[in-house]
């Protein structure tokens, strides 16, 4: 379970990027955070990942506190960003192998290739340098790396960006299966329609604040697009 308590972040230039955010995301849950650029979505993910320290507040995963055991917490997290982070000079296979080994997994070639196939990467690209991959293909390798880490929490920052419809559909199915396996999925996106389709719970952020929290049941017959735009306009 991912628990965020009264999390705030004020940057050195005094800008308050995150204002007292509290959330609880359970296992077997897909939580989607909606918000415009600068709303505080990425700041939230950056703090959970330990890329930046919070000004105040706490993050807890399965009883591990970010403030106490940051390294141990990272072991519980798989992270996928919009611009997938990979070594350009390595092949997709080599990138996956490296991060799998880094996670302490025993890696067999067949297993690695199987996972690359599973996320829909053409086998002719397995051993080509990442520099030759399209954005969608890079995204797939990033997904494979996140999957291979096999953590209880997945943090996904705009993960559908750049994926073609087929890949997006496959990835969506993959996230469902991860959820069904008991994983906690925290995802930020601009895509309201996908949020409504996938999310168990949705949060809307503006100006660093969580201004709305909607459950799947609440969204069932509601117009999420309208709700979202209302909050955005209210903020403006």
């Amino acid at each position, binding site marked *: 379970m991912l628990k965020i308590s009264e999390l705030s972040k004020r940057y050195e230039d005094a800008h308050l990027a995150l204002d007292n955010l509290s959330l609880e995301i359970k296992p077997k849950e897909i939580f989607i955070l909606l918000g415009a650029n600068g709303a505080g979505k990425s700041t939230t993910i950056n703090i959970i990942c330990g*890329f*930046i320290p919070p000004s105040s507040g706490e993050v807890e995963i399965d009883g591990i506190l970010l403030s106490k055991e940051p*390294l*141990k917490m*990272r072991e519980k997290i798989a992270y996928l*960003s919009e611009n*997938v*982070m990979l070594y350009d000079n390595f092949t997709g296979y*080599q990138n996956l192998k490296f991060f799998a080994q*880094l996670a302490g997994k025993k890696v067999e070639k067949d297993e690695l290739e199987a996972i690359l196939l599973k996320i829909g990467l053409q086998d002719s690209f397995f051993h080509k340098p990442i520099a030759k991959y399209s954005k969608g293909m890079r995204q797939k390798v990033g997904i494979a790396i996140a999957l291979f880490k096999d953590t209880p929490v997945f943090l996904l920052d705009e993960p559908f960006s750049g994926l073609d419809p087929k890949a997006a559909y496959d990835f969506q199915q993959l996230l469902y299966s991860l959820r069904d396996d008991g994983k906690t999925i925290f995802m930020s996106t601009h895509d309201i329609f996908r949020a409504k389709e996938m999310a168990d719970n949705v949060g809307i952020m503006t100006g660093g604040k969580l201004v709305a929290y909607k459950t799947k049941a609440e969204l069932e017959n509601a117009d999420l697009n309208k709700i979202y735009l209302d909050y955005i306009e209210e903020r403006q």
Partner: protein
Amino acid sequence: MNSVLFIKDLKLILKDLKFQMFFVILVILFILSAISSSVSYKNLSSDFQADYKAHVDMVNDGQSTSMMGMLTDYWVIVAKPADPSLLFSNYNTYPDKISTAISFYEPRFFNYGTEQGEVFSLNWYFILGILSGFIMLVISFEAISAEKRFGTLRLLSIYGVKRQDIMWHKYLSYMLLYLIIIIPPALVSMLLFFALTGTWSMIYMAKFALILLLSIPFASFFIVLGILISMSKNYRNSIVLIVFIWLLFVIIIPQSAYVIARQIRPLKTNTEYHQEGIEAFNNEFEKWGEQYNSSVYGNGSLEDGLRAKAVYAAGEKKSLVSQEELKDSKQQTRLIQKIASMSPFYQLEMISEIIFDKGYYLLQYQEETAKQTISQIKNLMIEQDSHDNTSLHLFYRWASADQYALNGMLFPFSKEKFNHPELLFVTNVETDKVGTKALSIILRLLPILLLNIITFMLAAVKLERLDIR
């Protein structure tokens, strides 16, 4: 050590086009340096042989080595034969030979650190001392920025890799790569040089191995510096910075050392020193004339050996000017060395002088050897002279015999051939013992080791504070 991280870094660098390009360049340069140095070796060997042959001819001739002749016409030469150390450096700004007048005053040295040679020569010093630092800077200056650009720095962080570990493993992989790009081509270069010159020597093999080993802290400094630069925010600034640092160490500091030292400790020209010497001689000579109310010029004007005494005293004054010239030259050289030592490149050069017995390190021992040799020659000449009935044994009865000598009745010193002409050409110069040398090298290594530690700590602090969002 995390082998996964280490191997990853190693593979990334091996795939780097810059690294591949530099490796090829280094292989070519090492081979060319062997060929170029073997040509220098052959040329210097033949120069040395020519000098030596002239000496042997002179000894056989017997004219110049007559003791009378030696006083005016000959020099003691302390020379170092060409040796395989030429592969490392030909020390083209330093003489490896000094000539010393056989004077019964303080010896006067010539070519003491003033000889200028070729401006550029291709050898290991150029590769290890000048180029490799630049190569390591260029290879490592993207160490962290590339990880940041790819975003992998964040991903590594998510995998619980500490930032210090990222830096440490990068450093180790660059160090290993330094050895990979330097040792195999250096080995080929060394074997090629030995084959071309026929100078196979286990001692020199060991010395070359030692200099390669000692170049590691210098390479390490540039790697750490490159890693530190790789954390700067602007790529263009990083490139400007590495070029500036390289120029600072290779050109600006060493050249400034010469300019500053020449300002602080200026040297007069050879002509000025020569003129001063002549003036000192004449002034003293004239003093004697005034004291005894007689002209000092012309044969026998001062009677009872007074002229000879005047010549001796004036000669001593002239030799003081020579000593001053030598002292000025040494002081300037020491100042140049002190300032230039701020450049790591120069430090490596100084260390190589100790290992190979070259340059200014050797020169101080050559000077000492020359002084001792002249003292030995003087004693032997006096001893030999004392057995010659045609000589007036002037070195201990100079003044009283002067009038006879000047009247041409007898010679002031023996015309016999000197019995030990081999002393006029000295090649065997003893330098420090191994232990003392090791201590000197360690002392010279300390600043670079300290620089390594400081730069590493700075880089570690900067990486810890690096914004990886």
